[in-house]
């Protein structure tokens, strides 16, 4: 009972530690605007802007007020879901983000699933036979996985499976709610391009933590007592290592979320990546800020959840 209480106390403390990170993150997002050289109002107003328009922008963004006041009012609005409007289309940024986010999350979720489904068996296989062909092949594959540009892999997949053979559509995406079959068909190639590196990463991490455990004193004792290797692997090995998987999943989710930005461009998927790239190219700063803000919030939430779960699930963590 007491340990239970302590676990929740930990979660609360961790939540309190997360708050400054969130506040600082919002500060960084806001300060992005300050990196713009010259008068921001001129840039924001775009080419051929009238004096009146520039003055309007200056007032709209509160550029005539002190920096911290600007930040405060921006944060206040952001917390209430007002991420300002796009300079190009005039659409509220939150609306654009809510429209794009599901497309991105669908690909990331499928990629994560693929990476785990393939990576976990591979990692177990490699760890149970260190130095085998599978083990060495996996290590080679893992080093390829971190060095290959995802978007190049995406291009190869498109060329092979969408252009040469008409198995999958080349571009675009369909909302999941509208037509689940087509939505998944559109998501397969982008998810595969993302998952390849992730799968190698999962397998490599699992292999190294499992291999370390299998060579420990504890396991050697089990061997000495005559416990069958299969029992050791499944009962003792995986039970101990499964907690590490939480960390790997969180890490992977973060990485996939970033990598999808470029892969989306290959498939012309209207997701978060396309949104921020279009915003950056056309200097649509509210959109850029909105996307960075959303992405960093998602990452912080993922990290917090993984950390909290880790402490709650793992009986070894007490302090």
């Amino acid at each position, binding site marked *: 009972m007491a340990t239970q209480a302590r676990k929740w106390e930990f979660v609360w403390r961790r939540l309190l530690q997360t708050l400054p990170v969130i506040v600082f993150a919002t500060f960084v997002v806001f300060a992005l605007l300050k990196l713009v050289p010259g008068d921001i109002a001129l840039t924001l107003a775009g080419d051929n802007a009238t004096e009146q328009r520039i003055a309007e922008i200056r007032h709209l963004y509160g550029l005539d007020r002190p920096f911290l006041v600007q930040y405060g009012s921006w944060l206040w609005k952001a917390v209430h879901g007002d991420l300002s409007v796009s300079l190009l289309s005039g659409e509220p940024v939150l609306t654009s983000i809510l429209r794009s986010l599901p497309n991105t999350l669908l690909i990331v979720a499928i990629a994560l699933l693929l990476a785990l489904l393939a990576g976990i068996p591979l990692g177990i296989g490699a760890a149970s036979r260190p130095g085998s062909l599978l083990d060495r092949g996996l290590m080679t594959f893992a080093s390829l996985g971190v060095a290959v540009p995802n978007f190049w892999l995406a291009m190869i997949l498109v060329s092979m499976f969408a*252009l040469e053979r008409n198995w999958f559509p080349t571009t675009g995406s369909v909302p999941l709610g509208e037509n689940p079959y087509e939505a998944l068909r559109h998501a397969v190639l982008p998810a595969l391009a993302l998952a390849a590196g992730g799968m190698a990463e999962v397998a490599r991490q699992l292999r190294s933590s499992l291999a370390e455990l299998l060579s420990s004193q504890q396991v050697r004792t089990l061997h000495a007592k005559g416990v069958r290797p299969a029992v050791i692997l499944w009962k003792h090995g995986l039970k101990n290592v499964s907690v590490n998987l939480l960390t790997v999943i969180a890490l992977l989710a973060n990485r996939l979320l970033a990598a999808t930005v470029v892969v989306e461009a290959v498939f012309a998927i209207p997701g978060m990546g396309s949104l921020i790239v279009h915003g950056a190219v056309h200097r649509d700063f509210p959109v850029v800020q909105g996307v960075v803000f959303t992405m960093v919030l998602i990452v912080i939430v993922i990290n917090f959840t993984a950390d909290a779960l880790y402490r709650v699930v793992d009986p070894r963590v007490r302090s």
Partner: protein
Amino acid sequence: MSAVINDIEQGEARPRRLRWRLDAGATISLLFLLLVALLSIAAPLIAPYSPIAQDLTNTLAEPSVAHWLGTDDLGRDVLSRLIHGAAASLFSSFLAVGVAVALGVPVGLLAGFLGGWTDEVISRGIDTLLSFPAIVLAIAVTGALGIGLVNGMIAVGIVFAPQLARLVRARTLVVRQELYVDAARCFGASTARILWRHVLPNTVQPVIVQVTLLLAGALLAEASLSFLGLGIQPPHASWGAMLARAYQNMEFAPSQMYPPGLAILCTALAFNALGESLRVALDPTMKHR
């Protein structure tokens, strides 16, 4: 007896001498990287054509004796663009990592050495910056600074800096408790001198490993930014920009994507292999692997 004294004198004050035996992978990687570096330095001498000379009568040509890797959609020689692109891609990787070192190392040193609330604030800042998806932040910073290769790579450097800062901070925390740091302080050495003479040299080895690995990351980041149109601008070539053009012609000439893609893959692979080899060589606990 004298040997013992000798041991004590040489003690831990000196950074461990780098004993680096190159394994096969690292040797190949090093040779490959040297070759790429040589090609990019001597690009104007070696490349058979100008990288921006168009020949609209001979576009998307198959590989031939005149054009070993064929021509692109504007009739430019792919091999020449690949060689000149190497210069742009390598230069931008080193620029980004240089920015990361210049920002990350001093911040990490200060945080680790000063401790207290300075460390607390800096560490929180590092945690926060590491929460940002790197390429997303790089795109945003590039958008703010203005589109272009140099701005893009400064952005990547800013995004990579916290990784180095965290590494240096952790190492500094260990080093600052060493006896020789106390001794130096007793002799009246200033903080700046202690940092420069005693702490910094001890952080060099992990930083070298990380820098090698970051070079691979920067190369991929350059490719991504240029692919998205936020990096190098036409008509100049970088490997990422070549992939962007190949993408536009994917339906008619799918083979265009392979030379730049393979160049990126091999170079990133070489940086990573070199970094891993260095890590093993420098980490005493991994000697018996």
